[in-house]
């Protein structure tokens, strides 16, 4: 009886030791030999960056790690040299950093596919988010991103009321506004809204057939209209790097690829506006 117990205890100790070794090998071994490119920053830019990285990895022996957070983290980490490239979905003015614009993005105002309304003005949108005033009597609720997100910043900057007051300077949204912390959640909130009375806003590259983009003052949210300047809600997609640190050959090759014809083709295929 006691012997079997002893065996069991020994077995447990042994297996614990095995697990520990397993863990430590996982901790130590695992230095991959391929070159790594670390990219971090804006979650608005990251879907595009993932597409570019996936394409680039097909032909090059590098592994590109895209860590998603926000523009300011991307910029800070670039300044401190913690990443190879930082992603920012807004204009960057910093002497220590070199900024390269890789694409332009439109902010699309979206509604349920069943929504009867096709065209809104920025002033109407402002009044809905600020005071809950229904848009053309049909749209009575809205979804926003959370404070701090790049899309929220862009939207808050671009949407103004008749007197030019920015949406961003409001201290609180109207009671009909709910907040989601991801593009997908915004889309889900809109597409599952069977009453078709809610609008939201997302990056133009993230539009798919689950929702429809509304026209703003009669101009459709398309890449051409952003490019020729008629669609007013747009922002740059930038990558930044530490000027002093410069670019390693691998990172430079990747950046060249992004700006090449092949790279810019991926930009427009992903639903964004190329910078050629």
């Amino acid at each position, binding site marked *: 009886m006691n012997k079997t117990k002893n065996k069991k205890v020994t077995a447990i100790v042994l297996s614990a030791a095995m697990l520990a070794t397993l863990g430590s090998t996982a901790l130590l071994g695992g230095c991959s030999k391929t070159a790594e490119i670390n990219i971090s920053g804006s979650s608005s830019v*990251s879907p595009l960056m993932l597409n570019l990285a996936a394409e680039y990895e097909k032909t090059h022996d590098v592994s590109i790690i895209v860590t998603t957070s926000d523009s300011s983290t991307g910029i800070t980490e670039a300044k401190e040299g913690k990443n190879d490239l930082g992603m920012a979905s807004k204009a960057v003015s910093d002497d220590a950093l070199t900024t390269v614009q890789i694409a332009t993005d439109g902010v699309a105002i979206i509604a349920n596919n069943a929504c009867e309304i096709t065209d809104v003005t920025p002033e109407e949108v402002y009044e809905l988010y600020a005071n809950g005033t229904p848009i053309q009597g049909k749209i009575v609720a809205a979804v926003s991103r*959370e404070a701090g997100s790049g899309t929220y910043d862009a939207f808050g900057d671009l949407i103004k009321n008749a007197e030019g007051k920015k949406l961003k300077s409001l201290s609180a949204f109207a009671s009909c506004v709910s907040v989601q*912390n991801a593009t997908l959640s915004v889309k889900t909130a809109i597409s599952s809204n069977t009453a078709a009375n*809610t609008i939201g806003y997302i*990056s133009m590259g*993230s539009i798919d057939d689950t929702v429809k983009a509304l026209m703003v003052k009669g101009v459709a949210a398309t890449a051409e209209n952003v490019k020729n300047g008629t669609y007013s809600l747009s922002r740059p997609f930038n990558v930044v790097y530490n000027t002093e640190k410069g670019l390693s050959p691998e990172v430079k090759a990747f950046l060249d690829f992004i700006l090449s014809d092949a790279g810019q083709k991926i930009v427009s295929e992903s639903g964004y506006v190329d910078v050629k």
Partner: protein
Amino acid sequence: MTTFVKLKDKMTKENVARAIFAAFAAFSILAVFAIVFFLLYKSFPAFRQIGFFNFLFGGTWSPTNPSLDVPDRFGILPMIAGSVVLTLTSVSLGGVLAIFTAVFIVYYCPKKIKPVFNQLVNLLAGIPSIVYGYFGLTFLMPLLVQLFHVPQAYGLVSSTVILSIMLVPTIASITKNSLESVPMNYYEGALALGCTKNQTVFKVCLPAAKNGILAAMILGVGRAVGETMAVQFLVGSGDNYPGLFLPFRTMTSSIVLEMGYADEILHKPALIAIGFILLLFILAINLCLAAVKRNNSISGNKLFNRKIRESENAVSHYSWHKTGSLQDVLWILSCAVSLLVALSLLFIVFFVLIKGVSGLDFNFLFGKSGNAQVTLAPAFLSTGMVILLSLAISLPLGIGAAIFLSEYAKKGSRFVKTINLFIDTLSGVPSVVFGLFGMVFFGNILHIGINLLNGSLTLSLIVLPTIIRSTEQSLTEVPDSMREASYALGASKVRTIFKVVLPQALSGMITSVILSVGRIVSESAALIYTAGAVAYMPQSYLSRGATLSVMMWFFNSADGIENAPSKCFATAAILIVLVLILNILVTVVEKYFRKRSNK
């Protein structure tokens, strides 16, 4: 048994062992103090610049607003109101559901269904909160929109419904325990006086268990205040005070919602400060709980304090007098409510499984994950790695602490009382607060950064109370005669513990391991900002990695993933299957050891 030690009191080896076990037991005290201290330390900048009262009683939360002064941007009164109101509504609803369910299980459930029903309640407790939230988002909210013709269903109604279902297992299991410890002579006495069974149950037994029920409700309050992921999906996070169909915020939802993008200057400290306020709430609730537990004994004749046993519970043939009284209505209600609870659990499980199975294929499960496609392969590895390391840390700590509490400590001494209070406090701390602590302390102050190591350290704190309690329980069940026999044969105390007592308590330790694995698998709020949310294969404990539950959050929040909703459901389905397996494993282990000890 302590008298036996005194014979060999001078042996230094014994004293060293004793000191080590005591240190392990005192670790919980250290952990609680560290959490309180470092959260306060990191939220101090926020309190100083915003002002404590502006922060607590300000009505506006607009952290990045350029047109407001700093003290006016960070007011969390609406969030506090949101947390308080949501807690009250869901504890009331969940409490009613849970108490009726517990009454049903203890007094009315046919003997054959009883294990099944207990199993169902355990399963309800095991489902990850993020799965509940996703279920609410995809099933309940569209349903509410159609039923009530409201523009959107974010708000008190949807979050209360889901949260109260989540509270049922917590409240029900404790209520069940205290009903079962109502002395049998109460029950028999009431029947002998001519009460019907229903009158006995609702007018005698239930009031006799009121202290335990109160404790259960307070524990439920703690759970509700701290619940994060499910609530985050359902409240809608608008700038409102709570309303039936108005998007509002809770303290927990705001932390998870905004931490990802918060700037280091003031926004992040303010979010940590919310965590600190939340922690204060939890500490207050825990003190209430401790006070209630202290006078938890049921007064009565000690001579006849027989507990209800399974065999004695089949006395229902006394009671089929229909009197049409209130108690009979309550009896019907308790059957109906338990049926409702069981059905909603089954519905949630099957809804998620059916929706999820279609999204499962080999490539999604085990394919290479990277920039081109996201698969679950890294999540399996990360989950395994996190389980290994956090158990490797918390098992020795927890078992050591349990050994101290059951073998060395003088029962009822002040030191033991303090340790017990702190272990209970630690187990009541919400996982989002653990997450903040991990991010601040391991990540920032110890410079570990955000990676699997940090996540494992954080999780080992979370599972520690479970391991201590479960091991302690089975240690105390080892009969003293075995220890005495061992001492009589000349074995030292340490030797007795390791060679005689611990092997006897193996079942408790295995159960605690399984329970901890379940807790780790379903955890998400504590991991997102400690271990990160990425879809890459972890290279080591120093890489970021997402466990399965975190992957659900990742699919729902990362941009540009194809078929993200179906991937969410598929991951949820895998989680539910895992939880089912773990639940069955607990039962099998318990059965196996019971059979063996009966031999």
